[in-house]
């Protein structure tokens, strides 16, 4: 009888501990709002796009943030999406493409919104053959949307071929706006990773020489708008599913605005000489916004 009582008490304790754990986990997960703070675009014929980084988990965070992206689309009808790498974490079996990409972003895919992906360190380079990543079979590539030229780099492996290609493409582009995006941030206040100085020494001189305007990167699982560096605006948006809460080093001297308490994504509009950006959290809150004038820094 005594033995039975002890077992019963132990069972009750286990239940209590489980309930506490579930409560703790639930508390960390934001309640998803049906509303969004996203503001509509200003320009009529502007280039409008979505920015996603470090998204391929297939978990609840990705799905809820994905749902929020689609809500944002109702207000801010972006025409395409850029992906900053780590498009698929872990295994890359056919079902993983479904769970970690096709399902969370189904409404966008159904609406024929094209995606243009960069490769992250968790991505098999053979993702470049996957049609919905828009890479055309290339590790690094470029594409044009009206006045904007995008340069998509493979920062995992910045070999001489890629450097030559980048310089050639930058030099021949006379687009009004030049935007580069890739996985590893060359400026970052992340405690876990920080700035990729090695990569910076190679690409930054080219960015400066050929008048690049804006750079987007991921890798760090948070949002950070950096103070402009040598006239170039840098954003890190690697928290569209993964989150490394509290990782931004507050006194790095680099941050203009940081957000590391919830998943996020960006919507961006380029309207003539102005780029307007909004950063939206998983809950639909606008956590940062602003505008950049071409030739000026934010």
């Amino acid at each position, binding site marked *: 009888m005594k033995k039975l009582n002890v077992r019963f008490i132990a069972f009750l304790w286990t239940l209590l501990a489980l309930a506490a754990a579930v409560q703790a986990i639930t508390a960390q997960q934001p309640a998803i709002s049906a509303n969004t703070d996203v503001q509509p675009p200003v320009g009529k014929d502007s280039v409008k796009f979505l920015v996603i980084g470090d998204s391929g988990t297939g978990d609840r965070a990705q799905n809820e943030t994905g749902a929020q992206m689609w809500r944002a689309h109702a207000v801010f009808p972006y025409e395409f999406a850029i992906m900053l790498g780590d498009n698929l974490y872990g*295994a890359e079996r*056919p079902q993983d*493409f479904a769970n970690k990409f096709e399902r969370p972003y189904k409404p966008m895919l159904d609406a024929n919104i094209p995606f243009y992906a960069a490769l992250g360190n968790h991505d098999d*380079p053979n993702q470049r*053959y996957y049609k919905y990543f828009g890479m055309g079979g290339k590790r690094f590539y470029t594409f044009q949307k009206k006045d904007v030229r995008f340069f998509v780099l493979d920062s995992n492996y910045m070999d001489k071929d890629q450097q030559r290609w980048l310089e050639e493409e930058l030099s021949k582009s006379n687009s009004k706006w030049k935007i580069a995006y890739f996985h590893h941030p060359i400026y970052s206040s992340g405690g876990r990773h920080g700035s990729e100085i090695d990569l910076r020494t190679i690409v930054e001189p080219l960015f400066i020489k050929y008048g690049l305007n804006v750079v987007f990167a991921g890798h760090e699982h948070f949002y950070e708008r950096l103070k402009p560096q040598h006239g170039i605006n840098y954003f890190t948006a690697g928290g569209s599913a993964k989150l490394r809460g509290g990782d931004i080093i507050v006194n790095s001297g680099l941050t203009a605005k940081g957000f590391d308490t919830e998943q996020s994504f960006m919507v961006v509009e380029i309207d003539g000489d102005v780029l307007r950006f909004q950063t939206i959290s998983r809950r639909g809150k606008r956590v940062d916004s602003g505008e950049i004038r071409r030739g000026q820094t934010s």
Partner: protein
Amino acid sequence: MLKLHSASIALVVLFAACGKADTAEPPAKTAVSAAAPVTPAAPAPAVAASTEQGVNPVGAAVLEFKKRIDAYLKIHNDAEGKVPNLKKTDDPKEISDREKALGEMIMTLRAGAKPGDIFAPEYQPYFIKIVQDDIKARPVADRKALVAELPKNVKVDINTVYPTTLPLETFPPALLRKLPDLPPELEYRIVGRSLILRDVKANLIVDVLRDVVPTIPS
């Protein structure tokens, strides 16, 4: 420290010089047929040549490395010809099936492959020196950050698939500049303390050079 820097610079200059000389070579096809063996043979007389007076040992290492790379490429191309071509697809299964088929075909064609088939044993010290000099020349924080990012406790072996759940950690661009160029079919990667050669399309480990990355105390 100054000595180390000078050594690195000297090596870089030597490699650069070799790279320039290489561009004057006949087209790759001729080089491949000249390299002949499908499974890279035992090192050529380059060893003896490299010790001869007036012969640049680094240049010899690079040339021998290129020869072996060309021999590997011949196998890779043979294998590619035997599996279906890969085009843009919306079916990820086609991508993984093709990667697997190509990997298996190469594994079969290189059934007797062993470590050092491409990183020739007598020239391994050059590769090790390049990597170690690069890492040692970095500031401590940078060095630690680099090493902290590398996949650890993973056993990698020649002629096996690179573990699909393992991140392909960034290869330090400055180090990449110091190593001999590779064709697009191949890339260098660091896993744990090993420098590996990876076939990009087949996701296959082509050769492994162990104990290259110095241990960095945390």
